[in-house]
């Protein structure tokens, strides 16, 4: 009876997993099939070819876009980790007037969708002469209220005496933040890192607005323009190949971080 139940659960879970994974798998398979073969629900390509990829690379400067995307996402992630942790530190461990009000205002901004601030942000970029620069892709994203919230909560959970001890040892606030607290909140740092990197990597709308120079375009922007903008000439295989390439780095980054994430969870040993 129990075994039956277990089997049913496994069947159900397997079906669910397939329904999530199959479209992704199909995309990869289709991108490796010749154009004429795409269309059916297949498990393995009847003919294996890199044609779609070769065509894609010949049509758009995807290499350059990949470098741009990596550069922008890395810079943004680094910036968010450095600056949001500073804000989180101030909001949790320093005492000053209006601290809570500032915190609530920051939380409030989380409720505003990016689309609402899109135009003001764009005007700011224009006024600052930053349109068509890397700065336009990075600057507006250097602080992030969600990251601030995560850091604040992580710091609030740290024993106060740890900070007292660091002060007795002669640490400045910056040193307390990065040398004493950071090594003990690695899970938070990794989560903030993954989320920021993914968000930055997937950001299309903003890039479409502030970047027109093909040399500065990010990958999602390039792929979108390529798929929607007609340069793929309605060839499904090429579109799919670009989508695979778009997803690949973020998957690699995620799998790397996830391993690290579990490791850091297991070895922090921060129990009182």
């Amino acid at each position, binding site marked *: 009876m129990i075994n039956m139940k277990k089997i049913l659960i496994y069947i159900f879970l397997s079906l669910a997993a397939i329904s999530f994974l199959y479209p992704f798998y199909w995309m990869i398979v289709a991108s490796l099939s010749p154009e004429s073969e795409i269309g059916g629900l297949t498990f393995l390509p009847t003919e294996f070819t890199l044609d779609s990829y070769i065509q894609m690379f010949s049509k758009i400067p995807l290499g350059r876009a990949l470098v741009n995307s990596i550069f922008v996402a890395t810079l943004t992630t680094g910036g968010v980790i450095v600056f949001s942790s500073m804000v989180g530190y101030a909001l949790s461990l320093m005492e000053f007037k209006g601290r809570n009000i500032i915190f609530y205002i920051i939380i409030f901004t989380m409720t505003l969708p990016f689309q609402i601030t899109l135009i003001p942000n764009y005007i700011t970029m224009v006024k600052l002469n930053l349109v068509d620069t890397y700065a336009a892709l990075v600057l507006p994203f250097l602080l992030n209220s969600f990251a601030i919230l995560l850091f604040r909560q992580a710091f609030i959970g740290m*024993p106060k*005496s*740890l900070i*007292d*001890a*660091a*002060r*007795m*040892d*002669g*640490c400045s606030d910056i*040193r307390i933040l990065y040398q*004493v607290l950071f*090594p*003990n909140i690695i899970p938070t740092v990794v989560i903030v890192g993954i989320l920021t990197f993914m968000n930055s990597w997937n950001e299309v709308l903003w890039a479409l607005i502030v970047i027109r120079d093909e040399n500065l375009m990010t990958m999602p922007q390039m792929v979108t323009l390529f798929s929607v903008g007609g340069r793929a000439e309605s060839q499904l295989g090429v579109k799919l190949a670009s989508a695979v390439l778009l997803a690949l780095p973020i998957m690699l980054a995620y799998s790397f971080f996830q391993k690290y994430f579990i490791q850091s969870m297991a070895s*922090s*040993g*921060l*129990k*009182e």
Partner: protein
Amino acid sequence: MAEVRLRDIEKTYPEGTQALKKISFTVKDKEFVVLVGPSGCGKSTTLRMVAGLEEITEGELFIENKKVNDLSPSKRQVSMVFQNYALYPHMTAYENMSFGLKIKKIPKSEIKDRVMAAAAILEIEDILDKKPGKMSGGQRQRIAIGRAIVRRPKVFLFDEPLSNLDAKLRGQMRIELAKLHRKLDATIIYVTHDQVEAMTLGDRIVVMNKGEIMQMASPMELFMKPANKFVAEFIGTPQMNFFNGKILEIDQKISFKNDALLFDLSNLKLKNLKDHLGEQVDLGIRSEDIYPHIGDLKNYTCISTHLIAIELLGNEKLVYSEYQGNNIVARFRSDFELEMNTKVNFYLNLDKAHFFGKATGERIY
């Protein structure tokens, strides 16, 4: 000469609570002073102010005759050992101890010498490469003390360092701390709520309550001559017995009287008691000053009490009885036989009685 002097120190928190009210005392060079009191009495706040972790609202703090009110904690030449040890979880014992020195840019070779010297004193050489997560409570405690030692401070501050240890280890560490004080020859200020720790470790003890100093004295003096009822109650286990009553002159004899008791005090040399004739007082007597028989007692009073409970402690027993609504504890030798639910005579040694004014709580005799 690492003398610590507090002069009229006050602490008021922004929301208005006053944690300390004009605290003044001096810790002499190489003295071991213990701050003791119930929780919330301001002892930890006082210590944190000396450390520089808490701002001083009013008053002056001197270390080695230098005013340090506005110096940052690391520049005051004090080290602190925290209740939960506050070791950096991501660093090994060695790194924990050397971190502060590294920040001060002390040369590596000297750091190593200092850490190894401290490790030798504390016998922790074999755990220097372990992280705090892999250590026992006692080991963490030693590392925390080691971290304080390597800085070669003028004053050591201990904030309830033993309260996270189990009873057996606490006893051991207490002895080791006393030894350490002699070895280091340093000024120590130590906060605890445990009066046994205070009595065994302190050269002098500051008893605090509600942000004020109740008494500062040697352990013996605190015990023998408590300055007020609070200290009398706080120091000594079991707690001192108290009887509430009046000082009266009855038949030309100075007496202590309430509804149930009448003690003749005329044989005591109680000049000061005469000044308090007619006043409400608390008469205090410790359990060890109550005897099961007269013995060589000269000034005594005998009451026949009703036995409630006996606690056998091995060499002695605590005898809990009741007399006219007063609960009384006496400490008898354990070979003294008693039967439950019987009457037992208590002989109170009035020579050892303490008198406190009811209104002020201050000692009047």
